């Protein structure tokens, strides 16, 4: 990972104004994505994974807004781009794939016309050219008889096939970055495996970088190079995938791993993480995980640990984590960005 990162997110803060108060959906997250890398963002429902992705794309709808931070794509801050410039980037440079394939396609158009539309929007391809490319893409994503199915409507496809269509749509303009937001949540397990296999293959074929958002650690283990674990809007641990599974440093990551079935483990019961994700309008004092943490001490209720290097190339945000040093010694990108204040996007 020595190359220049293609996407650098620094100190991203996205909030939602609701009647109950300000929801800090993403609270000062930083991460980077290198070329050809698959970054996993893992967390529970409501931990801010999707909002992170939507913030990168700048598709946060009211009452949400990006309060601070920078999203640098190839060195340029996307948050400073105009709406029209952003539209050029979406789909062309950064494409996104959504959770629910059943509702992410417009029911009144054929899938071919929906894919061609994206191609024609971003390139100056003629109609027949776009159609040929569409058929080629449908073949790429493993749709049998693509030339015959290009004129079918979404309802004529199964869920797995639709997700393939969405994938074809997302990669139609050869984007640098593909953001896959829980692409298989709505699908069953066998199809899930096929879709990830496909994403892996296409990622190599097109040389894309992928941000894979999921709540499934199994998926992370199979597909990702690096992982960021998110809890209550914050990244609590960041590491290479092997290191993470080898020795998770943050108690939350450990909790997550204990709560999934393991074929090699002799334990008959899974250990859940007790409690629930906190109300994002009223986060607990100190470390926001402390009410659910088995290692929580007095200090945890007062001190809010920032994400800090605990080893080369791995970071955690827990004062009890192995290698977590005192504030004065190591400073990470998170800290320096936090003092800048960042750009507001109101």
């Amino acid at each position, binding site marked *: 990972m020595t190359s220049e990162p293609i996407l650098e997110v620094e100190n991203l803060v996205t909030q939602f104004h609701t009647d109950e108060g300000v929801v800090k959906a993403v609270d000062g997250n930083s991460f980077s994505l290198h070329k050809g890398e698959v970054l996993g963002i893992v967390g529970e429902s409501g931990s801010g994974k999707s909002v992170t992705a939507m913030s990168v794309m700048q598709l946060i709808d009211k009452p949400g807004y990006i309060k601070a931070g920078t999203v640098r794509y190839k060195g340029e801050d996307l948050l400073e781009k105009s709406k029209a410039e952003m539209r050029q980037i979406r789909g062309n440079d950064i494409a996104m794939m959504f959770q629910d394939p059943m*509702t992410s396609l417009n029911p009144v158009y054929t899938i071919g016309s929906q894919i061609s539309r994206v191609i024609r929007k971003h390139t100056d391809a003629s109609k027949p050219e776009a159609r040929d490319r569409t058929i080629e893409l449908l073949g790429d994503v493993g749709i049998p008889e693509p030339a015959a199915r290009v004129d079918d409507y979404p309802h004529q496809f199964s869920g797995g096939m639709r997700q393939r269509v969405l994938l074809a749509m997302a990669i139609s303009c050869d984007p640098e970055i593909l953001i896959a937001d829980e692409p298989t949540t709505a699908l069953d397990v066998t*199809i899930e495996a096929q879709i990830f296999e496909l994403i892996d293959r296409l990622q190599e074929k097109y040389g894309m970088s992928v941000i894979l958002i999921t709540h499934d650690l199994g998926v992370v283990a199979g597909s990702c190079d690096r992982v960021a674990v998110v809890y209550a809007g914050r990244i609590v641990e960041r590491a290479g995938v092997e290191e993470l599974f080898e020795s998770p440093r943050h108690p939350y990551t450990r909790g997550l791993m204990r709560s999934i079935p393991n074929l090699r483990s002799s334990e008959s019961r899974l250990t859940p993480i007790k409690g629930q994700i906190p109300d994002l309008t009223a986060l607990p004092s100190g470390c926001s995980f402390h009410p659910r943490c088995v290692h929580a001490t007095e200090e945890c209720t007062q001190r809010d640990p920032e994400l800090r290097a605990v080893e080369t190339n791995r970071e955690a945000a827990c004062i009890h984590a192995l290698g977590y040093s005192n504030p004065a010694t190591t400073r990470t990108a998170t800290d320096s960005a936090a003092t800048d204040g960042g750009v507001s996007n109101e």
Partner: protein
Amino acid sequence: MATKESTTVKEGAQTREHRSQFEQFWREFRKNRLSIVGAVIIGLTLFAAIFAPFIAPHDPATQFDAPEGEHNPLPPGSTLFVEGESNEQITAYLGTDNHGRDLLSRMIFGLRTLMIISIGVNAVAMSVGIALGAIAGYLGNSWVDETIMRAMDIILSFPSLILAIAIIGILGAGTTDYGWISVPNLAKIIFVIGFAYIPRFARVMRSAVLKEMEEDYVDAAKSLGASDTHILTRDVLVNTIPIVVVQATLYMATAVLASAGLSFLGLGLQPPTASLGLMLSNARSFVYSGQWWYPVFPGLALMIIILGFNLLGDGLRDALDPRYSQEGSNDQ
């Protein structure tokens, strides 16, 4: 994650025939016999309206002479004479009105005015209502939305017929000459009723747009770089067509009733125009004197047409989009 080399995927093995949205709609629509009845009624009405001069047995305005010793209105099947030519006879299949005009012919021409009015009313209400509703929905919860929708609420707070009567009262019944433009009565009626119906379309449209904007494919389109106007016109509006079509069909019935109501009150079409409402208005003085055919046939015609529109509207609603079937029915 190279678990299986599965290039032959079985998920795609579904029905292979290409079925367009229309074929799908037709299959659904056909299921309900009543909607077919509605479609037939409206189809026949439209046919009669378009080809009125060829279908009507006589001229709707010609007054025929009753035979010696009898007086108009004459019952169905009566024989009358053409004025001035005592040897030329005609048969009035549904009887005549008090001026000796053939009831059937007047009814057929009445259908024509009726259809012009109800289509016109819907065209006015739809074009303005859809535009306003789409803008309001697209800019949901902004001051533009508020302004438009509160204005709609003000219009809606008056019963539509009362509002129409009030506007006609201000403009005056009959053709109005404004000096630079002369507005025919028919256009005025269409405008007045249409105006009263604008909020209904605006409301339906707004909620439909708001709902569509929440759909995942709108987000998906945005994430792939589609612009706002592109999304509104290509994704959102297209998906609201079913709701608008259903609303329009159902409001055709109310427009028919409203125009007949206005004519009945003497504020709508003016004699000698053939209009079912006007005929009913004239006929009401004959209800108790035994000339039953005069009020009954125009009244029946109105009833059947309104029934037809409602059946057709219900059928369309069920066939076009089952999702909206509950919302549509409690609108009235």
